[in-house]
């Protein structure tokens, strides 16, 4: 079955991203297709490559990036929400004059518009929401 996931909260502060990750992993293990994971609201903060969690803690961003690589997952960060919260890819960083090297989007994530959220609602058999 084609399943999509919406994540509304950032890493560590709320359990939402952990729950979404465990759910996505289990869905893939059961042979379902994860059509897309959309990160909205503070959820965009999952997509920063700059996190350095304590050594004895899980690395939530890395978990997502690795899952994306392994299963060709589509991890989409909402552009409007990302701009408000300071998550930029190279194009965005340049466009807003933030300086060389300041793009902070993590591997496996891409920035796109809210239309991607609507589209995944249309295209997927199931949509599951995780938030605060």
């Amino acid at each position, binding site marked *: *079955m*084609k399943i999509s996931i*919406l994540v*509304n909260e950032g890493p560590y502060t709320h359990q939402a991203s952990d729950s979404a990750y465990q759910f996505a992993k289990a869905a893939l293990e059961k042979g379902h297709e994860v059509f897309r994971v959309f990160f*909205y*609201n503070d959820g965009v903060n999952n997509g920063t490559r700059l996190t350095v969690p304590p050594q004895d803690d899980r690395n939530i961003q890395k978990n997502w990036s690795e899952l994306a690589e392994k299963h060709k997952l589509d991890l989409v960060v909402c552009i*409007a*929400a990302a701009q408000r919260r300071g998550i930029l890819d190279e194009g965005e960083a340049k466009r807003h004059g933030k300086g060389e090297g300041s793009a902070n989007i993590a591997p496996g994530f891409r920035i796109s*518009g*809210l*239309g991607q*959220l*609507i*589209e995944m*609602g*249309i*295209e997927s*058999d199931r*949509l599951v*929401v995780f*938030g605060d």
Partner: protein
Amino acid sequence: MAEPAKSPPAPPAKSTPKKFLYVNRRAPYGTIYALESLEVVLIGAAFDQHVALAFIDDGVFQLTKGQDTKSLGVKNFSPTFRALGDYGVTKFYVEKESMQERGLTLDDLQAVTYEDENDGFKEKPSIQVVSRSEMGAIMQQQDVLLNF
């Protein structure tokens, strides 16, 4: 009303529009969820799907009239609700019990209307006050529920 536990229906074909319900349970301004939900509604209106908004619990506060955010220094987004009719978003289900619990009547909410193109562009109210049990039934009829 209940879904069968083990036999999900086949997904609709791509060309069949789906029923989207945006469920608003939070007050405006204390958190950004109401505003960012509205941004999704605006984008989603372009997709030719069936769209409705539900206002329950503190979500009913999103529709109060007379919102004035000048002193707060944040954007007043309540007028945007009134513009939704032009985008074909004309179903605002507002829960009666949620209003009553909060001391609100329909008079405390702003008027939201749309022009019905199937009825000589007559101006009609977008807000429909529904009971809690009607709201529960409305939720069951959707294809996609969006919660923020």
